[in-house]
């Protein structure tokens, strides 16, 4: 691993991680005193970068930049619940533990996405990158057995509201934040920078 000041990046080469750049930065401790000057403790600052594998879910996160939403379906005829469609994407069917089949749910989402429930918050935890207020929406789809959590980018959410997906195709983050939603009928001019409809 290099000692350069370049923020760490990683490639996988021959099945192994190949980190490049700096993955951690050290800072000095500072003392913590009370009003009387008694030493109560110290701060322990640090800055580090984790590496994280998407494994079998990679298809979902890599397809968002292409305007696609992928889920999975159990097609094992011997499964007690064969035919179950999962979004969030599940690599294995949780019932029979056979590999589930990836299915493109983009058209299903455009045709049927409906707000199941929602919330609005001005408060976030550290490291949040979404604009506030954040509007969580939980979305149900026809033929899908689960309910996806995401966020509404335009308008105010309501239970039963029809929404359509938008995708961060410009400078994607390759995270769940590349997928957002707007009310059905929203014009392209109202979409946030970098986002566009599926096609």
């Amino acid at each position: 691993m290099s000692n350069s000041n370049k923020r760490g990046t990683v490639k996988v080469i021959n099945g192994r991680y190949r980190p490049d750049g700096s993955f951690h930065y050290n800072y000095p401790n500072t003392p913590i005193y009370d009003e009387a000057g008694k030493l109560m403790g110290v701060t322990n600052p640090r800055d580090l970068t984790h590496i994280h594998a998407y494994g079998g879910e990679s298809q979902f996160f890599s397809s968002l930049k292409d305007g696609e939403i992928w889920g999975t379906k159990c097609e094992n005829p011997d499964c007690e619940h064969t035919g179950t469609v999962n979004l969030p994407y599940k690599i294995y069917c949780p019932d029979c533990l056979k590999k589930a089949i990836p299915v493109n749910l983009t058209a299903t989402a455009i045709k049927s996405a409906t707000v199941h429930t929602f919330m609005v918050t001005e408060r976030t935890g550290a490291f949040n990158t979404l604009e506030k207020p954040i509007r969580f929406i939980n979305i149900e789809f026809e033929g899908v057995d689960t309910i996806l959590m995401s966020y509404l980018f335009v308008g105010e959410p309501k239970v039963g509201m029809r929404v359509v997906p938008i995708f961060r195709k410009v400078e994607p983050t390759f995270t769940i934040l590349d997928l957002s939603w707007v009310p059905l009928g929203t014009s392209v001019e109202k979409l946030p920078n970098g986002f566009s409809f599926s096609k």
Partner: protein
Amino acid sequence: MITFSQKQLKIPQMSKPVYLVTGGMSKFGRAIPEMRTEELVVDAFTEAADFIKKSPAELKKYIHSCYYGHFADHFGDQLLGEALIHDRLGLDPLGNVGIKTGGATGGSTLWEAFKAVASGYSDCVLAMGWERMDEVPTDEGNNYIACAADKDWETPLGHIYTGYYAVMAQKYWQVFGKSEDSFRKTMAEIAVKNRGYARMNPHAQGPMKITVEDVLKSPVVAYPLRALDCCLMSVGAACAILCDEKTAYELTDNPLLVYVTAGSHTLRVADRRNMEIPLLPNESADQYKDLGERFPGSDRYPGFTGFLAARMAAYYAYGMANIYDPTEDLDLVELHDAFTISDIQTYEDVGIRPYGEGRTYVESGDCYHTNPNTGKPGKLPANLSGGLIGNMHAVGATGIMQAVEVGQHIWGRWAEMHENQKKWDAYGRTKPKDWQNLQVDNAKRGMAISHAGVGSHVTATILVHPDHQLKGRNS
């Protein structure tokens, strides 16, 4: 899973009965910079030893294995903190293990301790839990808590766990609360009640004398949840000593039978598939046939309105302790009121009220020490400790604190543990002039529910006075 085999529904069996002998806790606070975690843990252990008139050193001689609940290593920036505590308690070279199940860590710690005694592995065990949530700023704390959600699919959405409960609150309010303002006020009543009871508890971090209006005007955290709807972020420790019968009666003449069970459900609410409502002993399938007519939109169970994990934990525990109807068979409960909405959801999935009708537990006055509607004792008082909203949520300690509080009522020693002016003084807290003894008269049986995440893990701890065991009615 959305269907269960008979093997999975087996009521858990023990090879021998297990008893709660004693328990103790430290003071709880948002920040306790003057004390290291080991000092809080020693305080809790010393209180447990004092409770049965033993010295800490004498009590330690009985312990054979140790179970430590400490959820968030990140907060304290210390991996294997359990080992440090074990060393400081001078319990090496006994076997010990750390337990982590999010908000249910305390209950899960009791579960592991319970099984160690029930199996015969140990005759006497220590269950000790703590949390140190003051060593990062609050927004970083919120991020760490949100890291207990799915880091790829949920955490990036605001890094705020309250949001995951707020969507449940919204759905529940619309479906079962029928979008009525009166339902929102009922939620607020829970916050008023629990913060009010916390005023009688010298350990408590968040005592407040407030009104429903105060709750409804408190700052929005994640609409519809407001600041006073939410539990505390805490520092503190709690412990319990569990024993087999012979050892229990060596240590005290008044141990309590204990049963601890656990259930789980998906970490992501998103993954919860529609299923039949698994029935508790006091429920029948017929009673839910018209649920969709009574509550339009209630077509999914558990969806965003129920906690399957709580239902499973209660099912197993009621089977073990022969509880048929918790409202009739129990004398008090401590529930995991992480948020006012989750408190209501839990009433239903542990069978205190039928699914969809949780609000009536509050509105009837049954959940109060003294029913405000009648002036008589509440039928099943809840969270007399102040709960997570008024007392504390030092995660690893919470489920243990709840069980110890229930035990103090059954032992008839609640006032002794909460009235003592020396304890108020030692904790630097002012005892209110209108301090009230919340002892539940003739308490014989009680339950504590410990709960994680949005319902990923739930434990049920039932305490029973040995002279008041119930005979089987659950078949």
